[in-house]
């Protein structure tokens, strides 16, 4: 695979992920993830260092498989969580997409992101920024899926509540 092809694969998948989250199209979003996908938002040890070992240090979110994401979507759909009634409106912007390691079956890609969020519950806007590291994998059905997503969230003073759709 050429670097140009890899860059196109990455951009398509990352843009699509942001779009599905912003549309609250949870099923399409989940379908971008492999069943064994790791979803990880580290916490911060101090001013400079994020946590680096989810088994020995605290993460803001760590799911070793897609089940954790499915549970979060289930929680929204129960309509019993006040964090999701109403849900914040989000716009994801993904940029600086840079494939770092490319093979025929997988791509390691880094990117930068910004999420503007408006919370209709309190009529307040938030902005979250950070970097993504995605591992993309070509699955047996030919589709590229997310095998791992690490979200470096620069904000480490969380306002009230934050979930997967805001990062």
């Amino acid at each position, binding site marked *: 695979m050429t670097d140009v092809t890899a860059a196109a694969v990455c951009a398509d998948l990352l843009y699509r992920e942001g779009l599905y989250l912003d549309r609250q199209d949870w099923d399409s979003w989940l379908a971008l993830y492999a069943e064994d996908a790791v979803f990880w*938002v*580290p*916490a*911060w*040890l*101090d*001013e400079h260092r994020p*946590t680096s070992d*989810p*088994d*020995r*240090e*605290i*993460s*803001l*979110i*760590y799911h070793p498989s897609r*089940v954790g994401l499915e*549970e*979060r979507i*289930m*929680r929204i759909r*129960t309509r*019993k*969580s*006040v*964090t*999701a009634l109403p849900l914040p409106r989000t716009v994801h912007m993904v940029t600086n997409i840079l494939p770092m390691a490319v093979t025929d079956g997988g791509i390691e890609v880094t990117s930068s992101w910004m999420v503007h969020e408006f919370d209709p*519950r*309190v009529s307040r806007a938030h902005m979250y920024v950070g970097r993504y590291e995605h591992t993309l994998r070509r699955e047996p059905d030919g589709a590229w899926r997310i095998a791992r997503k690490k979200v470096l969230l620069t904000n*480490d*003073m*969380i*306002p*009230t*509540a*934050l*979930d997967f759709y805001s990062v």
Partner: protein
Amino acid sequence: MSDRPRSAAELVQDRPESGVFRVHRDVFRDPAVFQLEMERIFEGTWVFVGLESQVAKPNEFFTTFIGRQPVLVTRDSEGVIHAFLNSCRHRGAVVCPFRKGRTKFHVCRYHGWAYDSAGRNTLVTDEAEGQYPESFVQEDHGLLPVARFGNYRGLLFASLSPDVPSLEEHLGEARAMLDLVLDQSSTGWEFVPGPVNYTFDANWKLQLENGLDFYHFGSTHSSYVDVLAKRAKASPPGVTPPPEVDAEAQGSFSFENGHSMMWSIRNPPRGLRPLAFDTARLAEVRQRVGEAKAKWMLRQRNLTIFPNLQIIDIVSLQLRTWRPLGPDRTEMMSHCMAPIGEEAEARRLRIRQYEDFFNPTGLATSDDNVMYEYCQSGYAADTDGWTQGYARGLGGGNGGPSLAAEIGVRPAAEAVGSLAFGDETCFHASYREWRRLVARGEMQAAAE
């Protein structure tokens, strides 16, 4: 409103003989009340500042706040732990702007005055050329220590007011509840690396109450309960916790000086806590503390040490503390507590279950935080300033046998009921202490 209470005594009404315990909404929303709380509670009594293991090695430090005031906690090169106001004696700048670290000297970056890890001034920059008067030379230039500093089994507390009882006396009988946590490890305690900080736009006492509030669980966290049910169905746990030997119940132990503990007994216990998972540790603990205490260690216990510490011992162990930023804004600091040297699988379980429940990015605390904000907004409704949230348990008799007695504890009050009890008398101790401290200041102010 013309009948708005004017004094602390009136804001908290405590008449057990007539079945009345009420807290006025102004306690949560009035800026003047907030000002009094900062002066007389957060800057007037013992508050929790951190764990001794945060400064395990000589010259390690961390920074925090007591009420509104910046504080630097250090272990000096001799091994002694200190707490200072984090403000340079020269012009008042924050001396140490870092969250934590290790250094022999703290140098103010404004004019270069320096302090060692024992707080002693080691440099007044260009002092000889400074044409200082003799009186300045005679003055001490060291960092100002807090008025009182205490260490209960590795938990560090400080008071900016010297007019407080000893820490042991302040903690009183509630020490036994801290012991039920601390005795679960014979190797000491640490924070799992990765503190989680968050804010909510609501009064700090909503957190204080919620941490003791069994009643809200089924409604506020019903989406979480659904997730738990789905998990249990999809993958039944491989290890099951030891069964309860006593009947299911819910209740509280309340103590002097504002402390209290909410507990529940479930059979089977909800979830698998690391202590139950790590059977070797559990056997060691049982042998060391005895059956009765071990039994209580495996039960939900939500402990509040007034005014700013909660230790929640459920499927993980959370230590949380808070800094009020305003009547309607609070900053939270949350830590996962763990035995030093814990077995790797138990540690992993502890971490996953902590993140799941306690993170503002998790499945339960996030709902609490949003509810605090709905309460704060709701407090603006003013037709009746008194809420009805302190009455569950007020009509119960206290005649039953003491559950605390079997672990040798004598609370000031006990409440016991079914799992649908949702005791609210466990909030009363904190409001009594709140009223005592705020009213004490009022009397002093009146006398001056």
